[in-house]
């Protein structure tokens, strides 16, 4: 955030990175030990409630920018993500959604009419899978890829839209429920994507989108940060709505990182300035978008980004429209829980096992037993 130093002479922000897998745990330890060596930290909305319960963060509602954080300045969905017990605890910086990217050339070769840009005609996952298989017969290497294979974020709406819940229920979201009919139905579908060869077992996160950009995949379910790359990839592509499970209600993934202040920071005033700059100024929000090409939550910056998308190409213009629609109507938050980090890690591993052939019912039962056991150790 270079603009911060220009606005506040003498101040600067230095960033330290921690490995993704251990980020939340390390943060918990540092905050719990009142470590004062850092002023700000990125926070995933899923850990807001556990951090509040553990007394690790302080609300920002009373600060100047806390008061400016209204549904007129920040996307309402994003505010919900960082709100707990009626208070706002962090500044949401980015938001996200998912689209169905498709390759026109590959669909045309297979005689498939591409999915429409009308939300009422949203394709089902089953429809996408069938079209993907047809495209493969006509020469596409992959039928349907996920930009985040084996990640809870991207598949949460599937079981949930079938009535199976997020996987966590009860007070504090501390009860694991992933062995119900809807979850099993989802797991069987997930396995079929790989057992039929529609999706690749080898391509990892980051690589699936590259395969789409290289014109190898008929469909890609992906986040907005691939829009510009797709627009510049030199392929004939289009975009539509994130699919819905047959018989389910449309739901889409959302949320992204927020920024919070360390209560033990010796530079609290500067820290709060930085949060305000990043979350509630056009310069700051666009600085962040330049660094990480996600959608900003600050409404003027969000509108400008959609405008940029609209002016870039026809598909990105469609994407801009889809984004507004999904965030307003279909976005579902991931569950907030003290056990979320364990839950997510276990679900991700379970998806990988299901993908490589483990019996879905058995995999879900095993995961549920492991999670129940690990949840029994969580601080009460």
């Amino acid at each position, binding site marked *: 955030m270079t603009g911060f130093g220009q606005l506040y002479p003498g101040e600067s922000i230095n960033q330290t990175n921690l490995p993704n897998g251990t980020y939340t*745990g390390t943060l918990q330890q540092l905050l719990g030990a009142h470590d004062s060596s850092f002023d700000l930290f990125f926070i995933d909305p899923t850990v807001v409630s556990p951090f509040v319960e553990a007394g690790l963060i302080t609300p920002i509602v009373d600060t100047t920018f806390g008061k400016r954080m209204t549904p007129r300045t920040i996307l309402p969905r994003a505010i919900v993500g960082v709100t707990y017990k009626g208070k706002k605890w962090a500044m949401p910086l980015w938001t996200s959604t998912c689209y169905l990217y498709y390759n026109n050339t590959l669909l045309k070769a297979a005689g498939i009419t591409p999915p429409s840009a009308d939300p009422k005609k949203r394709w089902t996952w089953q429809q996408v899978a069938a079209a993907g298989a047809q495209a493969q017969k006509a020469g596409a290497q992959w039928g349907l890829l996920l930009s985040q294979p084996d990640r809870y974020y991207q598949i949460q709406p599937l079981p949930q839209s079938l009535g199976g819940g997020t996987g966590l229920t009860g007070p504090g979201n501390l009860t694991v429920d992933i062995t119900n009919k809807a979850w099993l139905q989802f797991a069987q579908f997930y396995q079929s994507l790989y057992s039929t060869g529609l999706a690749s077992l080898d391509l990892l996160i980051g690589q699936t989108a590259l395969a789409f950009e290289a014109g190898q995949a008929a469909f890609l379910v992906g986040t907005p940060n691939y829009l510009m790359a797709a627009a510049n990839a030199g392929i004939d592509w289009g975009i539509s709505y994130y699919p819905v499970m047959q018989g389910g209600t449309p739901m889409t993934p959302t949320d992204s990182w927020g920024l919070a202040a360390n209560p033990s920071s010796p530079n609290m005033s500067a820290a709060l300035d930085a949060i305000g700059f990043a979350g509630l100024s056009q310069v700051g929000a666009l600085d962040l978008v330049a660094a990480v090409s996600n959608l900003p939550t600050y409404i003027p910056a969000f509108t400008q980004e959609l405008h940029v998308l609209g002016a870039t190409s026809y598909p990105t213009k469609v994407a801009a429209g889809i984004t507004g629609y999904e965030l307003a109507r279909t976005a579902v938050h991931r569950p907030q829980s003290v056990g979320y980090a364990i839950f997510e890690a276990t679900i991700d*591993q379970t998806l990988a096992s299901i993908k490589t*052939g483990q019996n879905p019912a058995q995999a879900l039962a095993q995961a549920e037993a492991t999670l129940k056991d690990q949840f029994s*150790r969580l601080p009460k």
Partner: protein
Amino acid sequence: VRTAHEATRPASGRKPASRRISRDTIAAIPFLLPILSAVVLFRLLPFVTAIVGSLRSAEHHWVGLENYRYLVTSPGFTQTVKVSLLFVVLSLLVQIPIALGLALLFSQEIRGGAAMRTLLFVPATVSIVSSAIIFRYVFASFGPANAILSALGIQKQPFFDSPHQSLWMLVIVMAWINVGYLMIFLMAGLRQVPEEYYRAAAIDGARYWRRTRTISLPLLRRQLLFVTVGATLSAFVLFAPVQLLTGGGPQGSTNLIMWDSYERAFVANDLPAAYAEITILTALTLIFVVIQFALLRGGTDE
């Protein structure tokens, strides 16, 4: 593990205990201090921390053996221990005979021996992370290994993606990394065997295999013990390839104890259970090493 000087230290030159030795000892202390403090700081202290931590709750209350009770009744822990022991045994069964065979082979005068020896040692100089990444690509479903199988008309194999093959794949990766390294120690041991023994045996009519069985192998016990213990330790504490290649899966088939304890500590944020698991790991390793000492000790030096 990397204490080459111990393995290759000549067995001769022992002196009876005397005042001179204690003076030597005093003189040695300043030189030993850096390594001794490193041992205390990076080995003993963490171990003591683990033991103490394993007897306390997350809130630092004494809970006795509660964390151990939780661990052994936890679903999946038995599987983790079984998989870890199987991995150690398989690693030893693969690595030691190959390293020994190569050491015997390259102790002979063979054409291009030095070049081949160097090539075999190269994997030991490559970082374990790079090796793991290379293997991920070689054995990917579109990788060169499957391309060769396809060219030979053999069905493609899932390798790391199969619960039946992934542990074996880790054994192969570790053998590739370790074998050349272990071979060097065994070769050094073979070099120390006095040439006269072989000549005398040859005069008595002993052929190559007989000389190897009755001279080389018995006199190599010390080095064999060293490489066996070294390979055992590295197998028990294996972490990076698991993280990079399998993430403990598929279906827990490579959920080795070191990886499992890492997951408990840093993903589940359950440090007490992770401490208990590390303590159990240390105990298991010690049992293995003690058995190896008992089997391979005796008559090593003369």
